[in-house]
């Protein structure tokens, strides 16, 4: 099957700032593809070029075989878009907005069902300006899905949502995907990327650092495991430092802290068992996607989006 979205060597510069330096990526049918990266990495510019809202300086883009600029009319019918700051007239009511937008598309989804699915039914008569941030966000998701798109690009899907609404939204997105819609998700929210995305492109400074599954990305960051325990009787550090899978052993009070590769835990528990030492208060810290993010971009994800 040909890819749903194909971006090759995309380059976009604003005045003297290069927003996207060289981005290539391929999105397959039916997957949830995440675009992850720090602020200003070029994520939004990349998707805006895919949506045809911006004209790339260089590079080639195909969405469902269409050129976003030349085949604009056809693309808008098949592509659902949620903009980072997608707005509606202040005095337009929720139901009016959905009804209006559904009239724009040849095969609209049932807007009442969408309203219900996003928990906005009791806000149907509320004006846009009176909605909370989370409700506005949910409405913009509904508007992205109203045309029954084949592909949906969602920019900052759950920013501004409370944890419960965030989880509900994730369920909704998984439901949309299970109906065969390909989804591109721009995010810097690690938990969201880990939970939802089949594959991720990590973008930094306008370039794709790597594309992989969330697990693969974490593995490729080669972040060591951290094992922490209290030995049931005194022990010599040498028992552990001699293990090839272990890279360091430190002590904090009565705690022993071991770092090492993926096999370190097996090796450590094996040695302890052979020496009849029980590892009390054992804790193992796996590298998270966030650790991988920091390792691979050398940056912390911006605060407020964790």
């Amino acid at each position, binding site marked *: 099957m040909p890819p749903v979205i194909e971006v090759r060597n995309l380059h976009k510069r604003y005045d003297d700032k290069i927003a996207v330096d060289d981005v290539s990526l391929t999105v397959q049918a039916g997957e949830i593809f995440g675009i992850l990266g720090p602020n200003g990495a070029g994520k939004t510019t990349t998707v805006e070029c895919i949506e045809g809202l911006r004209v790339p300086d260089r590079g080639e883009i195909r969405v469902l075989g269409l050129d976003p600029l030349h085949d604009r009319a056809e693309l808008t019918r098949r*592509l659902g878009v949620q*903009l980072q700051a997608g707005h509606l007239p202040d005095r337009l009511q929720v139901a009016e907005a959905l009804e209006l937008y559904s*009239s*724009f598309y*040849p095969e609209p989804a*049932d807007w009442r069902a969408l309203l219900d699915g996003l928990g906005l039914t009791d806000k149907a008569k509320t004006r846009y300006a009176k909605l909370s941030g989370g409700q506005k966000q949910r409405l913009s998701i509904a508007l992205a899905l109203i045309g029954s798109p084949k592909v949906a690009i969602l920019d900052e899907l759950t920013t501004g949502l409370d944890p419960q609404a965030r989880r509900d939204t994730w369920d909704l997105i998984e439901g949309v995907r299970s109906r065969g819609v390909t989804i591109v998700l721009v995010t810097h929210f690690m938990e969201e990327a880990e939970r939802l995305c089949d594959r991720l492109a990590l973008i930094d400074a306008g370039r794709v650092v790597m594309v992989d599954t969330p697990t693969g990305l974490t593995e490729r960051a080669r972040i060591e495991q951290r094992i922490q325990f209290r030995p049931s009787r005194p022990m010599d550090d040498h028992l552990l430092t001699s293990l090839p899978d272990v890279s360091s052993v430190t002590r904090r009070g009565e705690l022993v802290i071991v770092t090492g590769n993926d096999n370190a835990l097996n090796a450590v528990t094996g040695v302890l068992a052979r020496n009849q030492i029980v590892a009390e208060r054992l804790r193992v810290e796996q590298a998270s996607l966030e650790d991988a993010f920091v390792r691979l971009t050398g940056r912390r994800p911006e605060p407020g989006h964790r």
Partner: protein
Amino acid sequence: MSALRTAPPPVTAERSSATWRLIKAESTLCVRDKVGPLWGIGFPLILLIVLGSVSDLREPVADAGGLTYFDLYVPVLILFNLAILATASLPTTLAGYRENGVLRRMRTTPVGPARVLAAQLVANFVIAVVAMVLFIAVAGLGFGVGLPKHLPGFALAWLLAAAALLAIGLLITALAPGRGAATAIGTVLFFPMMFFAGLWVPISQMPPLLRNIAHYTPLGAGMGAFQDAYLGHFPSAVPLLTLAAYAVACAFVAVRWFRWE
């Protein structure tokens, strides 16, 4: 969801229904916005009724072909309505749409942002028609002011005036960087335009220099054309051409310079 999908309607039906719904939505929004209905219809209507009750204004104005001060106020207030829509209602709304990303969001739909503009123009046009009919009816039924004696001439003059004013509204939208600036430009333009329509002093009572300027302002030209129609002549060429020139020039510049974001 696919089970809930409606059957795809024919393309032409889809187009017209989207346009129609946009016009409906924009008209509803204009009414909720209150600037058009309140300042464009309510305020001039009250002014009309108040002025109609002042007997001193029933004196004929010198050099106005026998029309009284109050007779002249009817077309002035019709122009007042157009001026409010063009300088306050339309640019503030559209510049707000641009500032808030409404137009940008529309760019990602099959319908596109140009039709939002068109729908706003239609909505304001409808409000203007309602106001014009209402003012003439109230002036006629309540205060005995006759209809314009040359109706087709009046209709043509009104259409050209509406086109000129809406084009000016679009021009303000195109040139203003934001909603605040659009409101400011609109307000600054409103008062001189209304002055030259004769809101405070009838044009025929102005000093010659101001009178000459008035003839070439949009509302002064509109007033000249209306006055001709009220007196029973087809409006003369100069005011009609002046209005048409404003409409074409402003619309051209607005379209050239319009920014969607």
